[in-house]
């Protein structure tokens, strides 16, 4: 069984009135079953409102399913006693870099998580140091977070979850507010943690370019799982993706357009180097 597994999960956001009586129900997830292998890097794509963040909130027990079961590292997230262990195993990073910073100094900010879960003081500083090292932020440990760039702030946020020693990190549009350099910084940091430390990564994003780092992609539509597969396979279905309000990386699109115009270029090109090579072969 995967490190994260959902089995026929459905979720309703329920609105209650002042008397606590159910007024309205909004089904945000419908029969979603996914399986994420330990050490893998998966991406979740989907249109606005398709249920990605709702699913992510299930993966660290912020929400419990209305129907079905979610397991994180074998623990059923709907069991009260599992909530804190699950949050330790699955750290979350969100979109807005400014909302995630709590302390006035970088190292204190990173220490906040482990302190909160009662890690002994002498271990905390070791963890903080390690986490800052792994995210390339060690040189900034005494800096004030609000003087950092957006990409650096997000790396501090990632260091903060790393210091909890999670097995997975779930990132919900972590680069939406970053400049291209910051976006690269964050994605490369995450890819390296995945590769070197074996941390399982779940990345939610609207930037198709970032998905090329993933081993496996899930596509959501209207609360349901619509497609899954490796990036190359998913991105070779340009027209189908458009149906789900998605696109492909700019390079993949150009390759697709050239192919449609009759050039002998393979489907599912993901990188600029691949496309340059394919074009050079036409000479």
């Amino acid at each position, binding site marked *: 069984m995967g490190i994260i597994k959902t089995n026929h999960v459905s979720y309703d956001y329920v609105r209650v009135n002042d008397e606590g009586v159910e007024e309205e129900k909004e089904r945000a997830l419908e029969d979603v079953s996914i399986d994420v292998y330990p050490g893998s890097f998966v991406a979740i794509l989907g249109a606005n409102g398709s249920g990605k963040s709702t699913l992510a909130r299930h993966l660290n027990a912020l929400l419990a399913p209305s129907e079905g079961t979610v397991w994180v590292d074998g623990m059923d997230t709907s069991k009260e006693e599992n909530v804190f262990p699950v949050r330790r195993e699955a750290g979350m990073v969100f979109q807005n870099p400014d909302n995630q910073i709590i302390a006035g100094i970088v190292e204190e900010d990173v220490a906040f998580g482990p302190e909160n879960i009662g890690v002994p003081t002498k271990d905390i500083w070791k963890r903080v140091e390690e986490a800052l090292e792994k995210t390339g932020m060690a040189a900034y440990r005494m800096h004030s977070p609000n003087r950092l760039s*957006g990409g650096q702030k997000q790396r501090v946020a990632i260091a903060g979850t790393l210091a909890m020693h999670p097995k997975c990190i779930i990132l919900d549009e972590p680069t939406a507010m970053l400049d291209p350099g910051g976006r690269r910084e964050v994605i490369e940091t995450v890819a390296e943690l995945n590769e070197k430390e074996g941390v399982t990564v779940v990345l939610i994003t609207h930037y198709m370019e970032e998905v090329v780092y993933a081993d496996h992609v899930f596509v959501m539509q209207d609360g349901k799982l619509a497609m899954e597969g490796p990036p190359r396979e998913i991105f070779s279905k340009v027209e189908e993706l458009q149906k789900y309000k*998605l696109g492909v990386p700019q390079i993949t699109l150009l390759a697709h357009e050239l192919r449609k*115009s009759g050039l002998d270029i393979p489907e599912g090109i993901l990188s600029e180097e691949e496309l340059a090579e394919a074009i*050079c072969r036409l000479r």
Partner: protein
Amino acid sequence: MSITLKNVSYRYSTGTAEEIEALKNITLTIEDGQFIGLAGHTGSGKSTLIQHLNGLLRPTEGQVLHNGQDIFEKGFDLRTYRTKVGLVFQYPEYQLFETTVLEDACFGPLNQGKTKEEAREMAKRALRSVSVPEELFERSPFELSGGQQRRVAIAGVLAMEPEVLVLDEPTAGLDPCGRTEILDLVKSLQEERKITVVLVSHSMEDIADYVQRLVVMKEGEVFLDDEPKKVFSHFEELEEIGLSAPQVTYLMQDLSAQGFGVPTDCITVEEAKEAILKAVGKC
């Protein structure tokens, strides 16, 4: 209506240890009817700059001129001016506050003195134009997905039918189709209704596809100000400050280096496609 920043400097937290000069002696004119892009690394001062355009921030030094008149001068009708310069904030959650989506989008028109009926019509039209489904109109803006909130925030500003539309990262958090849809809409408003548009964006691809003029900021100063093609030819300097050129520009550079006779200044998929087809003799 043209807006000019004249020797504008802005400092946050003046007189404290945290004092920071976010804008340094900026002089810039936003011409009538232009579609202008504003790019820059995180923290370069973009959001600070655009909040001067509608007088939300007052320069520490220098002036903001509207058709030559200082907007902070006694006797200038700043209130009316603000309803003509619509600003969509970077973080929509800071912009949404009414109890329902529809009421939220009515706020601007009501503020302009429209009747309740008129305001509702304008609001509905704006919400539909950015594809907010009808069934969300009576929902609380805080019970929406991130991308849905973004759309409602944009609709709230569009509903006022501003003469100058200033958008701070409007497409962050939108799905790829939503991104194109909203930028196409903005483009058509600029072309048909002759409004002026200032688009702040971290997406070099979006900028290349839409804007006529690109202003790049670096550490509170204007670093480059030219047509996008010319700006992106400085891609190495852009990378040094955390930015980049569009993906296809790198491909063209690469092909040209490998001896392909293609122009290196293509910045859109369409241009690149034409150039490559021509180079391989299919055109």
